């Protein structure tokens, strides 16, 4: 973790210096935009961290390992795919959740299915999608992406 921080930090400082040398005004504008985006996600981010912290206390890791772990087989994939498809969790918030599931014993494949369905399949937003693309196209897109998410999960589980 610390190593990552140092690498990330050095990289950021290098980019920042390069940007400052090239154009000071643009850099300031960029920092302002980045700062605004950061504060926009800060409270949903903190909220989800609180919810995960509380959930971790109540849900024993044995249970997570049993239902979402390497030996959970198909049920684990299906549970992850359905939850990922119907919930509307912003992407940036799903990663700490996914990392926690991994630490608690969920398998890589199951976690990959969960985050991919979250990203690519949206049951809650389907009515909106239908308004844009029409029923047939929207339903097909979601169905194909659901299948793709399962394939991604299976390959990820097999590779990692």
């Amino acid at each position, binding site marked *: 973790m610390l190593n990552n921080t140092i690498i990330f930090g050095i990289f950021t400082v290098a980019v920042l210096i390069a940007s400052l040398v090239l154009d000071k005004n643009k850099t300031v504008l960029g920092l302002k*935009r980045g*700062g605004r985006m950061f504060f926009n996600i800060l409270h949903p981010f903190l909220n989800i*961290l609180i919810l995960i912290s509380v959930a971790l206390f109540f849900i024993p890791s044995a249970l997570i390992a049993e239902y979402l772990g390497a030996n959970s087989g198909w049920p684990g994939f299906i549970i992850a795919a359905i939850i990922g498809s119907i919930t509307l969790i912003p992407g940036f918030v799903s*990663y700490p959740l996914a990392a926690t599931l991994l630490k608690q014993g969920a398998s890589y494949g199951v976690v990959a299915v969960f985050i991919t369905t979250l990203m690519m399949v949206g049951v809650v*937003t389907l009515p909106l999608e239908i308004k844009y693309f029409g029923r047939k196209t929207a339903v097909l897109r979601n169905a194909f992406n659901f299948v793709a998410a399962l394939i991604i999960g299976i390959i990820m589980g097999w590779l990692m």
Partner: protein
Amino acid sequence: MNRHIKNYALVILFIALSIASYFMGFRPGVVVYSNFGEFFMEMVSFIPFLFIIIGLFDVWVPKEKLQKHVGEKSGIEGIVLVIFLAMLQAGPLYGAFPVAYILHKKGASVKNIFIYLGAFSSMKIPMLGIEIGYLGIEFTILRTLISLPLFIIIGYIMEKIVGRDFKINDVRA
């Protein structure tokens, strides 16, 4: 001001309960707080850096210019361009639908619109940054490399099935 209090209501409540748990020796509260502390440190160790990069990226890369030309290109060049454009975006998938509408109007093929949506859903650079931070670079690269050909295949299939009578409506929220 009011809005801020509302946004951070849960955070304030959580901190108050944690302090109370600490002084009253309520063990579950302390355990939950130490879980949170770990998550919080993990987050502050890379998220601020990430947003500096995202902000700088936003001002240096000419997104609008790119968007204008995506429709004109076809073949491999069109696919690469549409994926690149998608990677520069941020936000949830439903935020990509209006952009898909614009791309369609500018002449992008049905295939490329669905490749755009695929790449938008899971290859946005800000998201990849967070994914690397939490799930590791190996996971992120593998997942991206596996997803990419699948999006392209979905693009081709969608064009084949709905290509003939494809339309996107301009939905104003």
